[in-house]
């Protein structure tokens, strides 16, 4: 009988599945070995649920630091551009759909994509740890395992052990084969050198569908172009904003924290029927938030997009001018019936964005019970107090204003200008950051990174001398 693949070769085969730019979590056991084949120049970010992003090789005895470990408790290192984050953020990344691949070990895998890997019933006790979150949250779930356990098949029709996840496994890589979970069943795609289909079938309980292009296991890595996040201009960064898009923008309402350069580019780009989500909808021009240094200037805010008729709807907490005698452009458009508005308490808005970014569909909050914002919403009592059900918000785009970025998209903010920007960065499909300065990976303190680069698709630097004001044009 032909030899089975070594543990290192299985890991190498899984590493060949990974792609440039992906965020990947590796579980305990066999998955750990995959890290050995993820070299730095492949541009893959390794995520560990204890709060490390972009970790590198194991630390040596001399360099190990008890404050820098991975989820397996091993001493690790941080690559340039790596970041240290909280547990909460680490799992927010997973549930929020930012984890491209999870590689997990298995006790059992089913042909329907079920996975059991946290409890051996005979032992009675087990630790789910992060496995349930990884399995449910990762965009692609790869199981790496020996094909059998002491001769008994691990690839089954149904898992008999307590499940980690029911139908989420995409690919199974073993010491004998590569199998894909498809709607039709488990497809045998690659087979270990020297092995015949029948021999693999004998060691598999699940029904194997043999792929039309079944081949010997392939350990080759794909050739990939580098991922470039830095845009040369705001116009390039917003070029693909489409009509009807939902855009998260505006920090707090003041000039700090507002992505003026991107807003100007969006005005010139011309996308229409937009929904904007933010604390305000352009009050800088008409309030203390954006008082200009001279009377012939006015602040750049949402008004530039209202005046062009690009905004159709706003979800906001502080949408109109604090002063009734100085109405904003948005208020005028609202009174004329040209735009719609959904009014949301500020804390609820922030939490709806956090839920959107962190993969939570909805949540209960006490804010707004008994007020207009409760209309049409479920009210439920917990511990003698009433709460409202509020739903997550996600955007197609987020225009985020940060202070500095590195070329991997890691962001730091300045002062109170973080406000809504950091949470918005997590909650959009395409997050675009407008920054004062772009630096090389490693130049930002990993402990100080507020928005890890995996949330950020594009970065653009404000041109030198950029002003958040523009001259008032007299009609």
């Amino acid at each position, binding site marked *: 009988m032909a030899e089975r693949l070594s543990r290192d070769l299985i890991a190498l085969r899984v590493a060949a599945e990974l792609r440039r730019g992906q965020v990947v979590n590796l579980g305990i056991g066999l998955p750990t070995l995959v890290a050995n084949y993820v070299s730095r120049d492949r541009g893959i970010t390794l995520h560990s649920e204890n709060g490390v992003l972009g970790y590198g090789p194991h630390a040596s005895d001399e360099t190990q630091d008890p404050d820098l470990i991975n989820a397996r408790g091993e001493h690790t290192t941080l690559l340039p551009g790596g970041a240290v984050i909280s547990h909460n953020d680490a799992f927010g990344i997973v549930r929020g759909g930012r984890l491209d691949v999870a590689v997990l070990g298995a006790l059992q895998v089913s042909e329907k994509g079920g996975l059991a890997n946290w409890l051996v019933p005979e032992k009675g006790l087990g630790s789910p740890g992060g496995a349930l979150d990884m399995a449910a949250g990762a965009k692609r779930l790869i199981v790496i395992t020996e094909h059998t356990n002491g001769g008994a098949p691990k690839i089954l029709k149904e898992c008999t052990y307590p499940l980690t996840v029911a139908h989420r496994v995409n690919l199974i890589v073993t010491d004998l084969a590569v199998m894909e979970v498809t709607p039709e069943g488990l497809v045998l795609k690659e087979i270990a050198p020297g092995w015949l289909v029948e021999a693999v079938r004998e060691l598999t309980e699940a029904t194997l569908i043999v792929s039309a292009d079944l081949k010997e296991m392939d350990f080759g890595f794909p050739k990939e172009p580098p991922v470039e996040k830095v845009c040369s201009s705001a116009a390039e960064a917003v070029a693909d904003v489409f009509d009807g898009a939902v855009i998260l923008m505006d920090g*707090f309402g003041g000039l700090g924290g507002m992505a003026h350069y991107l807003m100007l580019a969006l005005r010139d780009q011309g996308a229409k029927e937009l929904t904007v989500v933010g604390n305000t909808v352009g009050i800088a021009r008409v309030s203390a938030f954006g008082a200009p240094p001279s009377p012939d200037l006015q602040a750049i805010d949402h008004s530039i997009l209202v005046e062009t008729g690009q905004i159709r709807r706003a979800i906001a*907490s502080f949408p109109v001018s604090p002063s009734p005698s100085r109405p904003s452009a948005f208020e005028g458009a609202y009174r004329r019936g040209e735009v719609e508005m959904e009014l949301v308490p500020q804390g609820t808005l922030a*939490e709806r964005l956090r839920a959107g970014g962190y993969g939570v569909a909805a949540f209960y909050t006490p804010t707004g019970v008994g007020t207009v914002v409760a209309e049409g919403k479920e009210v439920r009592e917990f511990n003698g107090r009433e709460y409202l059900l509020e739903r997550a918000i996600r955007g197609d785009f987020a225009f985020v204003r940060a202070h500095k970025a590195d070329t991997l998209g890691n962001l730091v903010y300045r*002062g109170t200008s973080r406000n809504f920007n950091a949470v918005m960065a997590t909650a959009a499909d395409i997050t675009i950051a407008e920054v004062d300065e772009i630096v090389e990976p490693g130049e930002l303190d990993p402990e100080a990174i507020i928005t890890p680069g995996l949330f950020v698709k594009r970065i653009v630097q404000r041109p030198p001398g950029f002003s958040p004001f523009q001259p008032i044009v007299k009609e």
Partner: protein
Amino acid sequence: MVKERLGRDIIAMRVAKELPEGAVVNLGIGIPTLVSNFVAEDKTVGYHSESGVLNYGSLAEESERDYDLINAGGQFLQWVPGMAFFGSEEAFAMIRGGHVDVTVLGALQVSERGGLANWMVPQRGVGNIGGAMDLAVGAKRVIIAMEHTDREDRPKLVKECSFPLTGRRCVSLVVTDLAVIEVAPEGLVLKEIAPDWTPEEVQSLTEPKLILAPDLKEVEL
């Protein structure tokens, strides 16, 4: 002859007395903003703003304004030691999570059961909720600092709020230019009264029936 009411600064000064040592305090826009001017120098109070800063200090001079350092009213702050910055989601987690001890808010109306309306004048048709609803339900103690009556001298302390609510049964104490009134389970208790005013005169400018505190006294600063 029209009797003199307390000035905005005096209202703020009276509220300042309510802030306990070590408290985390959020001050709303208007009279509440003035409160920090009257907190005793030897008292440690940590100011929280939903713009994303804790332990902020005084307002900045016009010449040194920095767009990256504002309070929730859009005023520029000074850079002072001990400040901490955070995002909006965390600013409101602090509020809803019960980590803000006292909030001082302005009001359009306060009801006898502690209901608060302060975000929208119905005649305008639009309004800003901002952080008010979260503060009303989240802060451990809600103190209202306001004038006792509106511009037409109509009571702002009412049986039921007719303006859109910010929160139900959330107000603990109301400090006005005429009185200090506690919201108790049995109703509004008049605890302190402005100099030269009688309880009857204050009652005539208040819609719900006021309960006189046994130790009713002149407003103490």
